[in-house]
């Protein structure tokens, strides 16, 4: 789920160690002596992913605050300590830092980084030490194939499933869409996303008139939109790319007066930058999202997602995206599985792995937690939303259980709006 750039990626250097004062590694294995649970992670804190990394970091921090800096390990209270390094989205650096987290810092629980390459690199090291990691950043099926289940548990659903609900929902509209153009960024995650969208569309008899595969560093979407325009009647334009691609797509559709019946902006339309940039132009645009504050999930500390979102907003002064809930859920899951000391050291990797794999719909603000045998979370469909009103607001359309409004469909032409 990453935007990547060709911009010169700067060399990486050690990032921040955050959290409490330094800890001397404890020699004795006995559970009763454990005073600290050490969480370790690396994140691309500088560079193009700086913003999304901040959300992750703040969410980890919010969890620590929520539990009051203490968790129960096998019935004993222990302090929570975090070590987070900056991997700048580089695989080599991530591998090095993971080695450091395991062999020098001796962390108890490894929290995954963000981005397919870095997650894979981290997994390779963790696998060598027979440790487990839990990650929220890589939706590619490649993670499942290589390190899923035995080494890595993934809290984000497979990107293949992202478009299903949205296309099911659009196929029900009147007049029924018959044709679709897809914008695919050339990276496994987006390719899988697009493949899902194509299969779902064909299931409904929607014809794919164009599947435009673009390099990750594409700067200009006008050639693409011109091609869509010249492809004839296109009822749906589906963007599988990230927020910036969505913004450029809509800007170019406005510029060239391309007016399909619906535009699906992708999975990141709720990122604040989209609305800040597009303002009223965002009206009628569809989106999908893995998580919304409107959802009816809860955990031990928050009665619903809105309460979580409010707390996050109050603490960090910005509205949480889905990344926040997902990242918050990682230490929350660890917290749950290490509480029980009945089978020996609850921080032992084998015990943790067994318990995480056995989770059966653990309640969390991120939704019920249950993994398949590849370590991938089982998720319901990804909800569908639409931006409505001249100062566009999110209206959830599907699934029915979450819906709080009706479609505005088909979308009126851009040049015929007030």
């Amino acid at each position, binding site marked *: 789920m990453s935007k*990547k750039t*060709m911009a*010169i*990626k*700067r*060399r990486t*250097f*050690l*990032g*921040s*160690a955050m959290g409490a004062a330094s800890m001397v590694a404890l020699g004795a294995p006995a559970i009763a002596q454990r005073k600290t649970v050490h969480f370790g992670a690396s994140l691309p*804190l*500088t560079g193009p992913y700086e913003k999304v990394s901040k959300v992750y970091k703040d969410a980890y921090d919010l969890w620590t605050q929520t539990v009051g800096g203490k968790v129960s390990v096998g019935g004993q209270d222990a302090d929570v300590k975090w070590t987070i390094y*900056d991997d700048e989205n*580089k*695989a*080599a650096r991530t*591998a*090095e830092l993971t*080695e*450091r987290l*395991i*062999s*020098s810092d001796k962390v108890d629980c490894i929290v995954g980084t963000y981005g*397919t*390459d870095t997650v*894979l*690199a981290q*997994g*390779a090291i963790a696998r*060598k030490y027979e440790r487990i990691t839990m990650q929220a950043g890589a939706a590619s*099926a*490649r993670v499942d194939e*290589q390190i899923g289940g035995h080494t890595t548990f993934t809290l984000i659903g497979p990107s293949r499933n992202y478009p299903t609900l949205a296309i099911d929902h659009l196929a029900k509209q009147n007049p029924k869409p018959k044709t679709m153009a897809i914008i695919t960024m*050339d*990276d*496994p995650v987006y*390719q*899988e996303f697009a*493949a899902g969208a194509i299969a779902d569309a064909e299931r409904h008899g929607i014809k794919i008139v164009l599947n435009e595969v673009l*390099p990750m560093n594409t700067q200009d979407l006008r050639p693409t939109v011109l091609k869509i325009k010249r492809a004839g009647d296109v009822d749906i334009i589906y963007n599988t790319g990230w927020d910036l691609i969505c913004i450029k797509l809509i800007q170019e559709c406005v510029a060239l007066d391309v007016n399909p019946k619906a535009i699906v902006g992708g999975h990141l339309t709720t990122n604040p930058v989209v609305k800040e940039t597009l303002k009223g132009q965002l009206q009628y645009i569809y989106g999908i999202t893995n998580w919304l504050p409107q959802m009816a999930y809860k955990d031990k500390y928050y009665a619903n997602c809105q309460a979580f979102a409010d707390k996050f907003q109050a603490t960090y002064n910005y509205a949480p995206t889905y990344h926040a809930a997902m990242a918050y859920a990682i230490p929350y899951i660890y917290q749950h599985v290490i509480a029980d000391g009945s089978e020996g050291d609850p921080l032992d990797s084998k015990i943790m792995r067994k318990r995480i794999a056995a989770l059966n719909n653990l309640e969390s603000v991120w939704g019920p937690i249950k993994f398949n045998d590849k370590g991938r979370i089982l998720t319901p469909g990804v909800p569908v939303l639409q931006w409505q009103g001249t100062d566009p607001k999110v209206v959830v359309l599907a699934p029915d259980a979450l819906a709080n409004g009706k479609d505005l469909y088909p979308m009126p032409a851009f040049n015929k709006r007030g």
Partner: protein
Amino acid sequence: MSAAIASMRTLIENDRIRLALLALSLVLVALGPFYLSAYWERVLIFVFFNIALASSWNVIGGIAGYPSFGHGVFFGMGAYTCAILIVRGGVPFPLAILGGGAVAGAFALLFIPLFRQRGFYFALSTLAAQFAIETVVRTWSFTRGLQSFDQGWNLPDLGSLDFFYWLTLGLLVACIGSIILMLRTRVGLALRAIHKDEVVAASVGIPCTRYKAIAFVFSAVWPGVMGAAYAPFLVFISSDNVFNISITLNMILIAIFGGIGTIIGPIIGGLLLSIIDRLSWAYLLQYHTLIYGLMIIAVISFRPAGIASWFKK
């Protein structure tokens, strides 16, 4: 301070002491796995890679005076060749390493027409070549991955951290050794002459294009070999992490930082940058990249001959 440097200089200038020091430090480094933590072992492996890459770049960029800005492409090619040979062809690892070097060397021959350019134009032509080749590797189904959507390769675990430590150290020693040997033949003198003045070099009978080609292929083969060793070390490779432009820039920066055109330069540069990188800068948090940029500017603006020049007259 300057007295200390001066006395160090006299020490280093004595050949026998120099050899003894070299042998001693090599033994100390070679025994690393017996006293280093896994983390520092891994750090040192990266340092070995960096030094070998910078030393190879130095042959064409520093000694022959042709600043290639596309050298990372040979590293990436070595890594991809190794991965494809092992995954698609089941080729044994040692052969895959040779394959990486061979493919990189063969591709280097395609760069020969670019030697009609000099200076900025050569630098930017090679940079453009890197971007063009990277795009092809990224999009061609044979190279991009095993399955249609894959973007990169996963390799089996081929050895322990210790194995890779000794492997990269061995390759590094072989790389630097071969450079020293090559420079002692007439190739070395030819390259220095080409660097100083190509017209003069040609006028005394040096076939410049041939020697530039030799230097370029030589300086491409080693990154190819190192790339091939790097792929199974990292286990998962993708075009993002082995064709990254930062790999090219690192080669150049390390060489310049330590002292361009010298054998010792890339070694000093590689060690020093890693040390600064990991120790001091750990405390500068989000400003580390800024400091890094400032340091580049400072070294170039005030000490263009690099850190190595502090130890010379």
